[in-house]
């Protein structure tokens, strides 16, 4: 028989505005998940404890929470594993991050659903429907394999560093769904989607903290989907339409002309107006030797690289 203290975030706005932690002790044995613990506490000790859940099988995506600071699905996390991982007898349970709490472990998911809807997460085929089904090859389906596994649990959203700094960022889960349809051969909106996903708060806002790939319980790798949407945006002629895209374009130019990053190209190319207005900062950088020579470095065998840039075809 194991004994665990659960230190749970409490917020009951119908009673008071206070946000605090409450400790509960439980004895348990055998397989025992965090969701099992919360439901037993509800049943045996505190009927006011609020949690959102449904399937208890890591399919519905309702019960994401933070266990000792790390976002997990409550139904998928064994209490003993969490204790072992954090070397503690106490499991701290919090609502997921980057959301406003509604009650205890339940958060206001409205912004998440709004952003999900904003990417048009459904197939929009061109032309009239065929008489029979649309056939998709195994290879074409394989490309969407990871993104199709998303259960919209918001574990990625919970720890996204871009969202913490910019609450309007569309975010990892919505973009995983964006790629799931932009990359689908049956969809007819590739160009429109490329435009829709790359504006302000779009794919170029991703700061590449990699938390989404790390936390996703289904191996969706939302950051990789964002990357592929960037690639689609380049294919659909948006390489010069946004500072984020021009930043990537500057890397390609540097690669072709010298093989290494040319920082003297990168800064003004990304945002020409800002680069010119930011003279005091530029002077400071120059004074500290941070402004590299404008003459690009040239690696040995650059021709190989230039030929690769011509030959390699993208298959997103």
């Amino acid at each position, binding site marked *: 028989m194991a004994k665990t203290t659960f230190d749970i975030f409490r917020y009951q706005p119908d009673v008071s505005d206070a946000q605090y932690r409450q400790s509960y002790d439980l004895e348990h044995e055998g397989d025992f998940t965090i969701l099992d613990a919360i439901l037993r506490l509800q049943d045996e000790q505190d009927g006011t404890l609020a949690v959102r859940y449904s399937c208890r099988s890591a399919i519905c995506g309702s019960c994401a929470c933070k266990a000792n600071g790390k976002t997990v699905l409550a139904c998928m996390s064994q209490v003993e594993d969490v204790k072992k991982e954090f070397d503690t007898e106490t499991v701290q349970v919090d609502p997921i991050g980057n959301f406003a709490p509604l009650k205890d472990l339940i958060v206001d998911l409205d912004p998440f659903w709004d952003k999900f809807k904003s990417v048009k997460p459904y197939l929009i085929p061109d032309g009239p429907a065929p008489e029979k089904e649309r056939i998709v090859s195994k290879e074409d389906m394989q490309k969407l394999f990871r993104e199709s596994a998303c259960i919209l649990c918001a574990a990625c959203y919970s720890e996204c560093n871009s969202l913490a700094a*910019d609450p309007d960022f569309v975010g990892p889960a919505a973009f995983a769904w964006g790629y799931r349809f932009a990359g689908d051969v049956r969809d007819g909106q590739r160009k429109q989607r490329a435009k829709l996903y790359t504006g302000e708060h779009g794919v170029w806002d*991703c700061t590449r*903290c990699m938390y989404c790939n790390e936390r996703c319980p289904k191996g969706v790798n939302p950051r990789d989907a964002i990357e592929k949407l960037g690639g689609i945006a380049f294919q659909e002629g948006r390489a010069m339409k946004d500072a984020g895209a021009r930043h990537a374009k500057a890397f390609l130019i540097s690669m072709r002309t010298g093989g290494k990053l040319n920082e003297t190209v990168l800064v003004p190319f990304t945002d020409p107006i800002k680069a010119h207005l930011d003279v005091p900062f530029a002077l400071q*950088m120059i004074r500290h030797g*941070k402004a590299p020579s404008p003459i690009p470095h040239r690696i040995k065998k650059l021709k190989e690289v230039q030929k690769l840039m011509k030959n*390699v075809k993208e298959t997103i």
Partner: protein
Amino acid sequence: MRRFAYYPGCIAEFSSKELDATTKHLAPMLDIELLPMPAATCCGAGDIAEAKPNLYLTLNVRILSQAEEMGVDILTICNVCTLNLRRANKMVKEDARLLESVNEELVKVGARPYGGTIDVTHLLWYISTEEGLALLEKQGPKGLNGLRVAPYYGCQLLRPSSVMGFEDPDKPQSLERLITALGGEVADYEAKSSCCGFPIILAREAVALKESHSALSQSRDAGADCMVTPCPLCHLAMDAYQRKAEAANGEKYDMPVLHLPQLIGLALGIDNKIMDFKRHLVPVDRVLETVAG
């Protein structure tokens, strides 16, 4: 003597030359021989992957193949280079058909095909193991004299752990081990593995400066004399952009930021001129005073 193909990355070779110079000076002291890679390109920094994913993979496999030809593993000093090279390595090592198609492209342009045999490691990983720390001990370090150092990992040396795999991304300890072994004190804080914002600092400066705020303010509140980072991009965000972050967030941080080899260099007594602290935007005077005693 351990030999490595040395892949400093673009930033250390150009705007953060002090990192490259210190690493080159430090290496022989740690029994490391750094072999240059004159035909290696930029890793693409995630940007080329975000524009042309197949090109990213091919260019990085070309770099891996160059090290393989030299018969040595790659040593990096940048989080972003480490992730990009390791990711490409994992992709082709786990998928023989993918490796074959990348190799076809390489051979077509006269480059050497890759056999999938080399590994990519970061200086921090090499030096923070038991064997690595023993190399430091052999140097008889004069130590950091109780300098309070805030470890700052950033993101891409830790996550995704399926690619990086050196340590638990939620409880990293390599920098802590190193700081303690060098006679410093660890100033611990939560945001040590949050994002510095650098990848979007040119395109989305306001967002990026909010991101660096977490680590800068928390390390200050933890009473750190300085921060240390294994990544030159994190260094630029934390050091070069620190005054901008102060203005944007309405707070003073005054946080000197050291490159990883500089922290080791201070403990081993490397000449400050070699470590070239003048190239930092936030002065490191209080760090030097504390270490000098």
